[in-house]
C-alpha cells in the first residue's frame, strides 16, 4: 500500500538536502556563475554593441542578456545534478539514499527539481544585475518562465544521466567541457544564427540549446529566429526522451546497484 505521507516526505527531504547542498557552497554554485555572466555582459556589450545588430528595435546589450541568463541557467542546472551525484558516488555517501525506501521516481524528481531551482536562481540573479545595466522589456513572462523550466529540466536530467554514468571527476569534466560548453556557446547566445553561413546555420538547428535560448529570448522581445511553440515542442521532446532514459537507468539501478 502506498503511504502518501511517507512518499511525499521522502521526496521533500531529498529535495531539501539537494537544495541545501548547493546553498552551503553558494559562492561556488551561484555567485561564481553570476559574476562570470556579468563579466561576459560587460565585455561583449562593450566590444560588440556597435558592430552587431540583430533585431532592429533591440540594442545588442539587451539582446545579449536573455541569452546569457539562459546559458547560465542551463549550465547550472546541469552542474547541480551531475556534480551532486558524482560527489556522492566518489565519497560513497550515495548509499544513504540507496538504502532507503526512496523509489526511482522520487529520486528523479528530487534531483530534477533541485537542478531547476538552482538554474533559475542563478538566472534571476543575473537578471537583477542586468537591470542596473540596461532596460529590458519582458513581453511574455509566461513564455520566459516556461522555457526556464523546461530548459532547467532538460539539463538537470542530462546531469543525472552523466552523474550516474561517470565514475570519476575527470569524466564529468569531459562532459562539461566537450558537450555543455560548445553546445551553449554555439547556440546563438552572442549572435542570431541568421548571421551565420548556411552550413553553421544548419548545424545550429541541430543544437537543442539554440531552441531554448531562442524561445527564451522571444519571451523578452517578442522576436525570434524560430516560432517559440516549435522551439518549446522540440525542447520538450528532448526532455521526454532524456527523462525516459534517466528513469530507465534509475529503475534498473544502472551503475548504482551492482
Amino acid at each position, binding site marked *: 500500500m502506498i503511504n502518501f505521507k511517507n512518499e511525499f516526505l521522502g521526496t521533500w527531504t531529498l529535495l531539501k538536502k539537494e537544495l541545501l547542498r548547493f546553498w552551503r557552497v553558494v559562492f561556488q554554485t551561484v555567485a561564481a556563475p553570476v559574476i562570470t555572466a556579468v563579466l561576459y555582459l560587460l565585455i561583449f556589450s562593450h566590444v560588440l554593441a556597435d558592430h552587431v545588430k540583430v533585431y532592429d528595435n533591440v540594442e545588442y546589450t539587451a539582446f545579449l542578456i536573455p541569452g546569457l541568463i539562459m546559458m547560465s541557467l542551463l549550465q547550472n542546472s546541469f552542474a547541480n545534478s551531475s556534480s551532486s551525484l558524482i560527489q556522492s558516488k566518489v565519497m560513497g555517501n550515495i548509499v544513504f539514499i*540507496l*538504502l532507503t*525506501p526512496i523509489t526511482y521516481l522520487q529520486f528523479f524528481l528530487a534531483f530534477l527539481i533541485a537542478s531547476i531551482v538552482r538554474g533559475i536562481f542563478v538566472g534571476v540573479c543575473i537578471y537583477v544585475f542586468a537591470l542596473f545595466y540596461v532596460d529590458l522589456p519582458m513581453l511574455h513572462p509566461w513564455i520566459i518562465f516556461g522555457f526556464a523550466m523546461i530548459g532547467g529540466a532538460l539539463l538537470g536530467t542530462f546531469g543525472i544521466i552523466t552523474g550516474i554514468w561517470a565514475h570519476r571527476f575527470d569524466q564529468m569534466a569531459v562532459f562539461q567541457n566537450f558537450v555543455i560548453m560548445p553546445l551553449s556557446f554555439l547556440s546563438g547566445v552572442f549572435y542570431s544564427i541568421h548571421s551565420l553561413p548556411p552550413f553553421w546555420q544548419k548545424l545550429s538547428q541541430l543544437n537543442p540549446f539554440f531552441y531554448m535560448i531562442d524561445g527564451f529570448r522571444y519571451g523578452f522581445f517578442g522576436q525570434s529566429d524560430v516560432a517559440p511553440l516549435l522551439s518549446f515542442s522540440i525542447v520538450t521532446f528532448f526532455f521526454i526522451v532524456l527523462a525516459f532514459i534517466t528513469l530507465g537507468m534509475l529503475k534498473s539501478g544502472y551503475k548504482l546497484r551492482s
Partner: protein
Amino acid sequence: MKKAIVFNKVKKNFGKLEALKGIDLVIEEGEFFALLGPNGAGKSTLINILAGLAKPSSGSIKVMGYDVIQDYQNARRSLGVVPQELVFDPFFNVREMLRFQAGYFGKGRENDDWIDEVIEGLDLQEKANTNMRMLSGGMKRRALIAQALVHKPPVIVLDEPTAGVDVELRNKLWQFIKKLNQSGHTIVLTTHYLEEAETLCSRVAMMDQGKVVALDKTRNLLKRFSAKNLNLRLDLKRKKIPVNIQKFIQSTDHNFITFLLEEIAEVEFIMGELKKSKIKILDMELTNSDLENVFLKLTGSKR
C-alpha cells in the same frame, strides 16, 4: 518465532567469478548473529544484496517477511545497515544528516525525540552540530551507526563495525549494540575478529569462497575449533617428515612447519615421531589457532 532474515539459495556472479554460490540461511528474530569469514568470502556481497545495494544473480532474501526486491520499500524500512566504509556527506552536520536520513524513510518531526535518544546513546551530543567532515574516525563510525538507527529498524546489520576503531570505543559500541539487542532488535554483524563474535553472538555462520561452511551456536563452534598451532623449525637435511604426522601439517615454508592440533596431547605424538626419525628441532612455538586456521580446517584447503 518470526524470521528476521531468510536467505534462499542466494547466488551472485561477477562475470565468471562466483562470489556467492547459493547461500541458505535463516536468522531468527531477536538473534545476535555473526557472519564470519576472511576477506573475499562474500560477506559484504551478501550484505549488499540484503540491503538492495546489489542484485542477486538468483535466489531471494526476505527481511521480516518482505522480499528485498519485490517489496523493497517495506524490506528497507525493516533494515538498518551500517556500511563498512566510513562514508559521510561533507555538507552537513550530524543532526542534519540524521534528520535527512529519517526523512527518506518518511519520518518527520515526530521522530526528533528518537534521534536525540540515538545521539545520546552513542555519546554524540557534543558533536551533534559538528560537520561530518570534522569528526574523527571513531566519531564518524558512531554517526554511521546512528544513521542506520534513525528509522527504528527491527533488524540491524553492521558490516565490520569495529574495523579501525580503538579498544575503548569498541567496548562502548558493543555495549550500545547489546542494549539494542536486549530491547528486541535483531543484530547481524560481519567481522573477522573471532573474539568479538565469541563474546557477543549467540550464533555464528562462517563463510568461505561464497559458501556457508559452518553454522552453529558460537559455543559449539569454538569447542570444535579450539585448536592450537605448533610451529617448528626443523633441521630436515634431506630427511622427510614421517608419514603418520603429515596429516597435521598446515603449512610448510622451507624448514618452518606449522602443525595444526586439535588436542594438546598431539604435541607429544608429533615430537615422538620426529625423534624416531632423528629430525632435530631447532626452534618451537605453540600458539592458539586463529580464525584463519579454523577456516583452513573447515575448507580443507591448504593455502
